[in-house]
């Protein structure tokens, strides 16, 4: 069953066509990777799903909902969580607070009960913390729980961003270059985590990644893009050997 569907989506920035008549489906429970050279429109696809951009044509559906009908802040409510290519954490808050913001979409209390910290607010806080602690445990972040983000090394920040996205309890997790800037060991860790996120938590993963080792290691299907359009779609091996993909990366044999 398809969880996320792009139907002939086109997005233009002035004269530049960033995404050109793109259609694909992400099935429930799979790890789906998008690859392509720089400027191919991979991150733009993510920003379209997050509703930061509105396409000029086409439709985006998620789990039976028309995503184009909601505000950017409404996307999370459907169960879509994401990370950012260049890490967008809340710098002057602790790791724990960052993850707790991830629980925001489950907020049931109102202004008054929060100002008085009524029993309902207290119960909700405890519930949130139970969830967040599970994720801290899962991603081995115990040592950093009460540290400010601004003092953390790059590799840990990457993991905290994944943790924050998981804290929202998503159905679909969008990972924008989860391994960029990570060391070899950290990339291996990330690979097992992505695998566990899919298998243990049952979360569908859509990721943009350049590290072909990681892509072929975890993903079920790969979409290759160039200049905003689809080049190839299939298993990692199929896509890697596809002549159009080879040409986009290496150029034509002269």
């Amino acid at each position, binding site marked *: 069953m398809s969880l996320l569907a792009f139907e002939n989506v086109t997005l233009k920035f002035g004269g530049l066509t960033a995404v050109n008549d793109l259609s694909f489906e992400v099935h429930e429970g799979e790890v789906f990777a998008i690859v392509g050279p720089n400027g191919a429109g991979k991150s733009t696809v993510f920003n379209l799903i997050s509703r930061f951009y509105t396409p000029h044509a086409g439709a985006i559906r998620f789990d039976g909902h028309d995503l184009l009908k909601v505000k950017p802040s409404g996307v999370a409510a459907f169960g879509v969580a994401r990370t950012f*290519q260049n890490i967008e954490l809340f710098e002057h808050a602790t790791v724990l607070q960052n993850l707790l913001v991830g629980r925001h979409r489950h907020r049931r209390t109102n202004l008054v009960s929060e100002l008085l910290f009524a029993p309902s607010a207290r119960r909700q806080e405890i519930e949130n913390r139970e969830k967040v602690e599970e994720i801290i445990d899962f991603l081995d972040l115990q040592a950093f729980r009460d540290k400010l983000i601004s003092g953390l090394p790059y590799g840990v920040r990457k993991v905290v961003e994944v943790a924050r996205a998981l804290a929202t309890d998503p159905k679909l997790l969008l990972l924008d270059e989860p391994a960029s800037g990570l060391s070899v060991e950290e990339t291996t860790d990330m690979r097992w985590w992505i695998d566990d996120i899919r298998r243990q938590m049952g979360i569908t993963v859509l990721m943009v990644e350049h590290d072909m080792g990681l892509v072929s290691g975890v993903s079920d299907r790969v979409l290759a893009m160039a200049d905003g359009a689809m080049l190839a779609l299939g298993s990692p091996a199929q896509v890697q050997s596809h002549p159009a993909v080879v040409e986009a990366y290496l150029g034509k044999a002269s």
Partner: protein
Amino acid sequence: MRIVFKTNYMQDIRPWKDRYQLCLYLALIALVAAAPWWLDAFYLGELTNVLIWAIAGLGLMILTGHTGQASLGHAAFLAFGCYANVILIENGVPFLVAFPLSGVLTGIAGVTVAIPALRLHGIYLAIFTLALSILMDDIIVLAEPLTGGVAGKYMGGVEIFGHLVDRWATPEQFFWLVLGAAILVTLGYINLLRAPLGRSFIAVRDSEVSAQAMGVDIARTKMISFALSCAVTGWAGALMGLYAGAFNNETFSVVISIQLLMMIVIGGLGSIHGAFLGAIVIGFLPQFLSIAKEYVGAAFGGSTVAIPGLEFGIFGMILIAFILFEPMGLYGRWLKIRTWFELFPFYRKDMFKRQKSYLRTERLR
């Protein structure tokens, strides 16, 4: 270094770290509440003033310190709260109703202002709110039948359950009233920060893009922040009016707005402690300066010449010094000193250094 061994979630949710810290704060409250017995009338008045400024600082801290929206116009909301309170009392509303209501009305005024202001960021928002502060002056003059215009208004004491609470006749009662208000506002603030709403403020401050991706409605969050901030500022304004006794259109000038912003920067943006520490600096600096002036005058031949603008000059220099050398304010400095002792000898110089992040996601709109 005290290490708290946490065994349940409430230990983390409670505002105090452990019993020792709780006792420390209770002792501080008790000490301040007993001030009428160990302070003379003049300094009690000054302490009351500091507490009123602290409430105003808490108001601005919600908006600027925690939601990241700079406002140079909070004197307008101080004025709004002050006039709302007095006008309500003059029309026969008892103080205990008029006072909360003045804050609520100011909050509503804040939301009205927030609707156009939501589209503005950074320096543009600061200019917008600055204009608001200047406009308020004219509005008070123009609305003369209501506000008394340039002649201003006079407010003596108020009655609470038959007790006269007056700045001059019963300074102790007035002090306790202000202290009570300060404690209530602080408790509400603490609760806010440990609940989802307070965290969404911080999220909006640090990264609007990812706050949205987490399901935080930016416009709504900013609006609520404006409302809460203005309500608290309105209460501070109402108390300021009672403290001043007489006020007119010039009492809440742009200078007050700037002073308020300076206060929370000096105290430390993004912390409740910062509002109080900043208020202490702003409240006692004029006294400190006049005492210092006497000493300096005595050292240079005994004359005490009045130097125009000295106070603001020094304020400005202090502010510049803080922005250059301690952007985290007094509270940040205190945190550093405490960490130094806690970790001795392992404190690293760059422990609190802000990392420059060159890798910000490019602005999306």
